[in-house]
């Protein structure tokens, strides 16, 4: 009997992990992932509260923004659209692991030229959830959707989706937890048509999109002469930018067209072995980009999930973007001046050569720039607001 109870005690205590053991870390707080049971729909989704007030209180849950985070910059672009329409925005900062202070985050954003002006308040997201006066909750990154789902508030639920985030991981726990957020019943507003189409057809989400803009004030043709350089958006730590694939393609290009300068921008790549001469531009400030673009005839941009903003910005500056072919890019922009090419290194290199060898390169660049003249972020803001209004008033 004593033996049995000893065995039982042994079995029914939590075994101690070994020293130096492997932590399990996910972007979402473990408790949030554990508690969210999306197989039982959230009441706010089952019976959406009708919103009649003209001015709404809108909560955005997001990870603490960094200065050069393009995803956060885009979030604040649309927060300022909501504020301009008379709504009040409250930002809730959610982070499972990394410490931050609200004051320092706010300071960074207010002083950064990359962020628009806004009046939103900032606070740390806690298990208490959003304040009781909140009418609408926007989730942003996938982990924030868990915080939104766990919140007992009956506020209307939206999901501001900028990429298909399960693709950021090998298939496993993190990709599954990210994918499940599309089953929470939230209304999606997405960056471009690919995401809206994917979320609606594969997950049955109510999903609408705004189109990308290209800021004409920042990106335009200033150099209307033959260009003898090319550009590659090189970000080795960001898997979806296909750094290694791009380098393999550029090595072939460099061999065929050694007289062309190859610019790498987006990351300091000096410590990578790159088998051809290149200019390491590292991370450039937003006001330095147009000058670089205007030296380039072609730009290689690999986007393996949702398309980058870069192809339209490059076009605006008269650079022909060579982009890997796929629905993730074509459904975002079907602009005929984007040179969509299969993601075979040799095919990409051949296409870059074709683009720089064009006899009518200058006219072609001008026409490419003209083709995006109408793509403005103001238009995107109006589309976003129309989707939002239709969803809450409908």
């Amino acid at each position, binding site marked *: 009997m004593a033996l049995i109870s000893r065995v039982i005690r042994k079995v029914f205590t939590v075994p101690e992990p070994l020293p130096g053991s492997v932590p399990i870390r996910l*972007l979402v707080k473990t408790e949030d*992932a554990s508690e969210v049971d999306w197989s039982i729909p959230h009441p706010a989704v089952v019976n959406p509260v009708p919103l009649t007030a003209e001015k709404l209180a809108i909560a955005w849950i997001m990870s603490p923004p960094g200065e050069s*985070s393009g995803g956060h910059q885009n979030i604040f672009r649309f927060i300022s659209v909501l504020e301009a329409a008379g709504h009040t925005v409250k930002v809730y900062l959610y982070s499972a692991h990394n410490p931050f202070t609200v004051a320092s985050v706010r300071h960074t954003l207010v002083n950064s030229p990359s962020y628009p002006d806004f009046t939103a308040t900032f606070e740390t997201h806690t298990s208490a959830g959003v304040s009781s006066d909140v009418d609408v909750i926007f989730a942003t990154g996938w982990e924030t959707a868990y915080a939104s789902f766990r919140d007992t508030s009956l506020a209307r639920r939206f999901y501001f989706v900028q990429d298909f985030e399960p693709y950021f991981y090998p298939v496993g726990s993190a990709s599954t937890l990210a994918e499940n957020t599309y089953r929470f019943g939230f209304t999606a507003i997405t960056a471009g048509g690919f995401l809206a189409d994917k979320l609606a057809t594969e997950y049955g989400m109510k999903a609408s999109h705004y189109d990308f803009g290209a800021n004409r004030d920042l990106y335009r043709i200033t150099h209307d002469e033959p260009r003898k350089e090319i550009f590659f958006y090189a970000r080795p*730590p960001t898997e979806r930018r296909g750094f290694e694939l791009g380098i393999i393609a550029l090595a072939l290009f460099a061999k065929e067209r050694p007289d062309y300068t190859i610019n790498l921008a987006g990351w300091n790549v000096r*410590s990578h072995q790159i*088998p051809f001469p290149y200019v390491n531009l590292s991370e450039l400030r937003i006001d330095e980009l147009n000058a670089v673009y205007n030296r380039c005839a072609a730009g290689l941009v690999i986007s393996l999930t949702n398309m980058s903003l870069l192809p339209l910005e490059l076009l605006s500056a008269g650079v022909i973007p060579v982009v890997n072919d796929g629905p993730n890019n074509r459904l975002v922009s079907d602009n005929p001046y984007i040179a969509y090419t299969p993601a075979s290194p040799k095919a990409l290199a051949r296409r870059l050569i074709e683009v720089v060898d064009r006899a009518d390169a200058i006219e072609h660049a001008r026409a490419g720039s003209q083709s995006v003249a109408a793509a403005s972020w103001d238009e995107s803001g109006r589309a976003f607001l129309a989707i939002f209004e239709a969803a809450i008033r409908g």
Partner: protein
Amino acid sequence: MSLFSRAVRSLKTEGPRQAASRAFNRMAIDLDTNRLGDSLVRPEDAVAVDWTVPQLFTTDPPAPKTKNVKTAWIISPPGRTSGGHQNAFRFMDFLEKAGHSVTVYFYTTEHRVVDVTAIRTMLQTTSAYPDLAGDLRVYDPEQGFDDDVDAIFATGWETAYPVFRHPTNARRFYFTQDFEPAFYASGSDYVLAENSYRFGFHGFSAGRWLSKKLTVDYAMPGDFYDYAVDKDHYSLTNTAPRNEILFYARPPTARRAFEFGRLVLTEFHRLRPDITINLVGWDISPYYVPFPYVNHTALDISQLNGVYNRCAAALILSLTNMSLLPMEVMSSGVVPVVNDAPNTREIFESPYMDYQPLSPGSMARRLVELVENPDQVAYAKAMAESVAAIDWVDPGDTFIAAFEASMLAGPNAPRP
């Protein structure tokens, strides 16, 4: 720059979310030295392959040949317990037994020297491997494959690259056991793996889900063999009520979703703290697990049935091609709780497969229901009998018939 100062820098410029997700994904890799050559494929092979240009082997295939076919297989160097390698060698053995010849080439980008003699000894002494008659060689890029080879089999995605590069029109086959791009985040390796399905090879896939996916998504022609359960190893021996459960836990294998299973079992333990949780598949002691469990580590095949027969239900997560485990535990009277998805539904049809949505709470509740089922014993018996009654088709017969049929095929239309 140290990894730490890099982390601080990236925290400042990107915000903690990006920095964190990167650290989690690429933990083992020093980002500054993540250079070309870290991929499974040799960069020279990745550069040389241009699959957008149709090749001789699709436009001008060799004359039909079904007797004494000379085959070459290229594969990464095998380990003693690698199930994927064991399975590939089993199929090489089928070819030899059908009167064809096999030469095996080992392909790797690792610097470690491949010891062919040790591999030969392992094949001869490990019961999980057949003792192959054919030659074993290290793949030498200068030599490539023999010029007179009739058919070349790629195995892992990286081996498809040297197979594509072979200059003759020898027939090309692709022995696919999983959808390997899913092993990576969307990035260069994902693309290089995915592109291998566009090379124009003829696939032999483990199960119909994979075969269908490759045909539908990549227009890759192919056949499949069905899984078969080894009735000798798995059977119902315990007909008393069972009060334990099982989780197939393999933390290093992302597609087995260890962290997700841990969430499910944490909730399960909260609901029924009295039920023993068995973890099988890997030594879990270095991992934090917030509930008591029995750590079986990786058990020998002969010990599995004993553990299975103590369990009423098993949590088995398969995020890419399904594991054989659900069928095996059913033979032992354990109800498999399996994530509900095409990759699990399209492999094996049985009313006893307990498909559940991937919500930790709902999976935990289902596991409780299964343990508490008053008809548990009768249900287990009926389930085990249903599996035992299946006349499993021999995968070898399926394979040889499909192989010989495709050795007769004419040219494929060049794909757009």
